[in-house]
């Protein structure tokens, strides 16, 4: 086995001389030239009178083709020096072990730091807002993690449940004046009910069909919100959503406000800090429930389902119920996050619930390593923080984001940061890792 692989390696080394590299790079550059010739070499734009004009950009075209040529040479050289680029090469086992030891301390350390964020950055409103945003995505990521990471169901319409939660709270609060603390569970339950309603008929579909149906469902919810103007306000959204209260005590400047009751000077930051701890509590609730569920039979069944559905059925696990609970649990947390989003913004519109949002949450889960709680949290931090850092390069955002998804799938399909193996498995040496085989093979 090893001898064979060494032989092939040496064989490729001898074949891969400099002419080979140059030929490959030349071909790549030629392909790039044809691909980009019209799309980048020529720029079209509609003039003021609707007439289309164009101008040439051969400089950009040449530089991009040059970059492809150089990049191709570099990649080929790297491939010869390092060998095939794989997960093992990218992160050596020693580092991996170190990481896992560090991981034991990292999670508590991060939690303590998060708890202290409002204290440390009390006067920096921008950082607090950003932290709230990151925590919202952490919560969404953890919610979706139940569906994608644990149960292995690809849900491309997760944002639908987020929207249901947000609109439930917004409409209940603005129409009936119900308080946040009554609406929050209601929003979660409504979202979970939608999850069950959608899940019941479609969950017997296989992987990709399920993905496309959830995507269609997400779009249907968004289109209905846009068009059902009498209820949802259509594209204008819902405004004047009440702010949350501390169990009935408003966080404002009035005489019944929290500041007045405590006898301290009022500051708008109080509300931000309150929101921060609120979303932190919600996110931690999600995390806690997920960890507890993972140890129950239902959690074990989710993980088994992710690994092999046919085997699950053979063992007598009711796959429909199992999938349905995963779907409903994920939707429940999505609904909570949506209610929080609505109360934080004070204004919601359908624009916040596009497919891109679903894909972003999905990318957080994928990047974090499906099933790994810490990984998802770190991925949310990296992703949302990264978007903030490169705010000036907004138009390239989705380009980088898309490439990141493709490259992660190629190099580390089970996640860049973490990877959670099933909680229980037979301690038997496997011939080949399950990462490397198609489902049902090996």
């Amino acid at each position, binding site marked *: 086995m090893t001898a064979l692989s060494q032989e092939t390696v040496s064989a490729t080394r001898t074949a891969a001389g400099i002419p080979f590299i140059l030929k490959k790079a030349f071909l790549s550059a030629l392909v790039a030239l044809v*691909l980009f010739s019209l799309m980048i070499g020529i720029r079209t*734009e509609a003039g003021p009178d609707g007439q289309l004009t164009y101008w040439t950009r051969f400089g950009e075209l040449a530089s991009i083709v040059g970059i492809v040529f150089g990049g191709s040479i570099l990649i080929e050289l790297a491939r010869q020096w390092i060998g095939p680029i794989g997960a093992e090469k990218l992160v050596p086992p020693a580092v991996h072990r170190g990481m896992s030891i560090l991981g034991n301390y990292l999670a508590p350390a991060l939690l303590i730091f998060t708890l202290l964020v409002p204290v440390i950055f009390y006067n920096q409103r921008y950082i607090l807002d950003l932290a709230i945003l990151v925590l919202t995505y952490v919560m969404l990521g953890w919610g979706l993690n139940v569906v994608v990471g644990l149960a292995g169901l690809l849900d491309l319409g997760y944002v639908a449940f987020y929207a249901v939660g947000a609109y439930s709270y917004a409409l209940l609060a603005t129409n009936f004046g119900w308080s946040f603390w009554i609406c929050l569970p209601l929003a979660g339950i409504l979202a979970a009910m939608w999850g069950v309603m959608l899940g019941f008929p479609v969950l017997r579909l296989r992987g990709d069909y399920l993905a496309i149906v959830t995507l269609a469902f997400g779009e249907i919810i968004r289109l209905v919100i846009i068009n059902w103007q009498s209820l949802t306000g259509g594209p204008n959204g819902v405004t004047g959503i009440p702010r949350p209260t501390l169990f009935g005590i408003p966080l404002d400047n009035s005489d019944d406000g929290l500041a007045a009751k405590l006898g301290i000077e009022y500051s708008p930051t109080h509300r931000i800090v309150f929101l921060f701890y609120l979303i932190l509590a919600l996110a931690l609730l999600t995390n806690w429930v997920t960890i507890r569920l993972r140890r129950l039979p239902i959690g074990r069944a989710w993980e088994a389902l992710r690994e092999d559905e046919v085997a699950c059925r053979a063992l007598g696990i009711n796959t429909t119920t199992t999938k349905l609970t995963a779907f409903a649990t994920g939707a429940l947390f999505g609904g909570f996050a949506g209610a929080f989003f609505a109360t934080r913004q004070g204004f919601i519109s359908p624009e916040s619930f596009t497919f891109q949002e679903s894909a972003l949450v999905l990318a957080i889960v994928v990047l974090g390593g499906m099933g790994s709680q810490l990984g998802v949290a770190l991925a949310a931090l990296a992703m949302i923080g990264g978007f903030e850092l490169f705010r000036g390069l907004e138009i390239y955002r*989705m380009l980088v984001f898309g*490439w990141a*998804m493709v490259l992660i799938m190629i190099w580390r399909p089970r996640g860049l940061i973490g990877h959670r193996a099933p909680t229980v498995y037979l301690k038997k040496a496997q011939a080949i890792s399950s990462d490397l085989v198609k489902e*049902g093979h090996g």
Partner: protein
Amino acid sequence: MRNELCTSLYAKASPVAAVSSLLLQQMKCSRAAGAQELSQELPLSGVKLRQRQPMDYFTQQLINGLVLGSIYGLIAIGYTMVYGIVGMINFAHGDIFMIGGFIALITFLILISIGVTAVPLILLVVLLVAMAITALYGWTVERIAYRPLRHSFRLAPMLSAIGMSFVLTNYSQVAQGARVKPIPPLITGGYTLHESADGFVIQLSNIQILVVITTIVLLLIFNRLVLRTRLGRDMRACEQDQTMAALLGVNVDRTISMTFVIGAALAAVAGLMYLLYYGQVDFNMGFVAGIKAFTAAVLGGIGSLPGAVLGGLAIGLIETFWSAYFSVEYKDVAAFSILIIVLIFMPTGLLGRPEVEKV
């Protein structure tokens, strides 16, 4: 009067799109009634005419629906072939269609500016260039994003395809700008099939005829290719069992690449037809068209080429009639609901074979 109506309707329908649409409304409103877009102006004029001439109105909608359905069918062929062979939803296929439209637009612009005026020549050159370059896009996407994942776990190609779809959308936004790109109508004229006493005319424009005939011809050619040629036999062999096909001397990688190339070339034709029919392209058009075409592929039965076109026609007709008789706002909801209903009750589609789950 008509122009005013259009303006107000655009502004009401979507404030975001209104700015870019305003540029176009002049051109659109002056287009022939037969080639008008299935947008906001159609059902309104229909409301009052429908009461008087239900049959004529129906026939006109039938024509419009068949044309729209042909475009969906052309895109759906790409989905159905790829899903049949590799078993993955090529999520980026809708964006390949969009790229095809853009390349057709740019080629068209260049030909006009160097002084080519013969319409058949322009069409031929644009068709060939768009097919060739878009096919290369399809090949590249497969080579970069899907081939390394051939033996990965089952969600990996899907996620990679979603990433690729974002890359392509954003790439054309960065490269060509976010605004809608209109072209003046290239193929004008048509036939008046029937004119009723109160002035409602059923029109069949030349471009509509062109779209439908192109679809039928391409379907016949490619169906023959799959059934009669060496490449088609390799494709069907890979569809049944890739390992066995490889053992019997079929070059599996090459066959799969060719599938993507053919799918992309057909998507380019669809892009060109879309450009000619609607007179515009924009970077965002691939997403919704892609989902609808996928719906068509599922409806027709995954793996079947005539099924894809049949499904495309069905989706196009349903969407058009829904817009004409119920509400134009909910036409996408109708299409997506059909996707869900078909998958639940008829997962094998109209012409598909039942899928056997193997361990």
